[in-house]
């Protein structure tokens, strides 16, 4: 008897709550700017392996973009009420998924920027599609964002695995290193890189003797490094597709085993200037790699880098400049569209061609939302060539925007 009463109470309670909730409904006015403000969300790694190369300083870069936008338009700006909010995704896709949801729903973000780590980026792209809000990815590498898993609300800004392989794989092979031994971390990014590099190397007439996946994360690469000289033919170069702590470990052990002296060179798939800084130039001297932007490449970059340094105390990586550019171009697009409505901003971004401090000859491709721009082949200086802190790179070659990235026709992207 008592139990039945209880059940009835419970059901009644459930009903009332549900009905009342229906009354709530979605709010929001019909103005040009939703919630009377534009909110830029920066979601990235603020304490982990990528916190140096993007992290909190990316937030600073985005704030610089807001500053410049306000200065440029003054009273004509679409709104003066621009907020920058931020969250830490710890490089975990599940955290990224939850945080993206929170940024869009709770913090009313109109766009989420940055998002290193491919798995996390794909999760955020999924949320962007579900919430119909923008995601401009800067620091993740996977071509899936503009390929099989592309969507209408996701843009890819700074670089991707195709661009890295196309630059580094091709040029190192052309320079004479025909026989590659590739080691890659056994997760999405590594597998993606391995595939892209193999294609680029074969296209240039080189060969990949073998490619070994390494456990992730891993701190002992000696098995693979010892294997290298025993392969037949002896590889001319080891291509590592590792990032962060794994890369640091591998390079350290590569130097310990003295492989360079044995004639086996090292080529690094993805490298940020912060990696060079943390291991020291001598560990990488002479290594060729592909860069999306270098702070000391010309006077404009340097001027921007000086401003950045004044605020952060350090020199910017290409990810920082990329975030500045993505934030600035988002605001410019909203200005052109006259609203922060996602569909209109997407339309304003599509096909747009521009130049800013990050992107030379930049264009947002309408077909797959890849932002293409000139990219660079860089070489790590030897210690005696370094004239000041962070002066580590020498730009060897500029790869024009149209050649640097995967052609839109090959992307396989369908909105």
């Amino acid at each position, binding site marked *: 008897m008592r139990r039945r009463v209880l059940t009835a109470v419970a059901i009644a309670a459930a009903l009332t709550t549900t009905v009342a909730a229906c009354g709530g409904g979605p709010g929001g006015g019909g103005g040009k700017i939703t919630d009377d403000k534009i909110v830029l969300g920066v979601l990235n790694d603020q304490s*982990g392996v990528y*916190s140096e190369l993007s992290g909190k300083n990316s937030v600073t870069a985005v704030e610089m973009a807001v500053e410049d936008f306000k200065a440029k338009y003054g009273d004509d700006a679409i709104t003066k009420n621009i907020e920058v909010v931020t969250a830490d995704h710890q490089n975990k896709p599940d955290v990224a998924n939850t945080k993206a949801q929170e940024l869009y729903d709770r913090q009313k973000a109109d766009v989420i920027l940055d998002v290193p780590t491919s798995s996390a980026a794909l999760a955020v792209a999924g949320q962007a599609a579900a919430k119909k809000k923008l995601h401009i990815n800067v620091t993740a590498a996977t071509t899936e964002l503009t390929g099989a898993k592309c969507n209408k609300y996701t843009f890819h800004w700074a670089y991707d695995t195709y661009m890295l392989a196309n630059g580094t794989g091709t040029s190192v092979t052309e320079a004479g290193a025909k026989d590659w031994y590739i080691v890659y971390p056994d997760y999405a990014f590594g597998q993606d890189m391995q595939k892209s590099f193999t294609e680029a190397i074969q296209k240039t007439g080189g060969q990949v003797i073998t490619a070994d*996946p390494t456990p992730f994360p891993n701190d002992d690469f000696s098995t693979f490094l*010892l294997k290298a000289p025993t392969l037949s033919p002896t590889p001319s170069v080891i291509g590592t597709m590792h990032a962060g702590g794994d890369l640091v470990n591998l390079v350290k052990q590569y130097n*310990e085993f003295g492989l360079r002296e044995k004639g086996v060179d090292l080529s690094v798939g993805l490298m940020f200037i912060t990696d060079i800084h943390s291991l020291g130039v001598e560990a990488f001297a002479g290594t060729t790699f592909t860069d999306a932007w270098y702070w000391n490449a010309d006077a404009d970059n340097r001027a921007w880098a000086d401003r950045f340094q004044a605020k952060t105390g350090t020199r910017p990586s290409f990810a920082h400049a990329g975030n500045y550019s993505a934030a600035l171009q988002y605001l410019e697009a909203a200005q052109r569209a006259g609203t922060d409505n996602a569909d209109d901003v997407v339309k304003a971004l599509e096909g747009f061609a521009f130049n800013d401090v990050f992107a030379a000859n930049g264009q947002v491709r309408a077909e797959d939302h890849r932002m293409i721009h000139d990219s660079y082949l860089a070489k790590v200086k030897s210690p005696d060539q370094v004239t000041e802190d962070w002066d580590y790179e020498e730009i060897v070659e500029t790869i024009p925007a149209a050649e640097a990235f995967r052609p839109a026709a090959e992307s396989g992207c369908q909105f």
Partner: protein
Amino acid sequence: MQHIFNGLVSGSFLAMLALGLAVIFGMLGVVNFAHGAFYMLGAFGAYLLLTEWGVNYWVALAAVPVALGLFGALVERVLIRRLSALDPLYNFLLTFGLALLLQDLVRREYGVQSQPYTSPLTATVDFGLFTYPAYQVMVLGISLVVCLAVWLVLSKTRLGVIVRAATERPELTRALGIDVGRYVAPMFGFGVALAGFAGVLAAPMRAVNPLMGGDLIITVFAVVVIGGLGSIFGSVTAGFAIGLITALANLYVPTLSQTIVFILMAAVLLWRPAGLFGREEAFT
């Protein structure tokens, strides 16, 4: 051949950690979850001494374990001892909390980015058939000496007799009127010092980062289950053996390289639940 060497080198870390775990377990009946965190603190200690005060590696190798050992003894006095009368699971939980705390403290201070630590020995040793980095050879040598020394001390000296007796027959030892309590804090400290020692040895070889011990400790648990937790000899042997087997798996069946230790553990549990060198009475 090189791969066998490699396996033994990574096995030496497992062995030293398992040894420390076994000593602590033997003396206190406590499984120290924070053992991995102490290993990490050892590596960080060496890193900090070098970068902050320019103290070189060899000094760190002596100083860091001593400091950590004292810290360990303090932890025993202040925390572990309070729970010694209770189910050892409480101390397992306590050390788990301690591991989280220490790991996060270091992470907040230094980030999870790996810190570079240059090797004190850059030469290579020529074995005729192959050459091998001198530092790795040294690590293997030192760890063998340490394990042997601990074993000798425990089997030949009076202190050893007491510790072993307390380890293997705690009630009986107490009944014989030996004040086991007096040895508890020093032995806990000693176990922690061993972990710190392994950490300093690891610093030039492995990435020095706050998470380096967290994953390793689970493998060490499996090693200890395989060797038999009560057995010092078993822990050390299993440590080296697992290092070797993992390296060979890495070479021949890479897909198994991370799981093989757990498969072995399952097999041991089926075949000899007390572990290869454990005694049946050691568990109920």
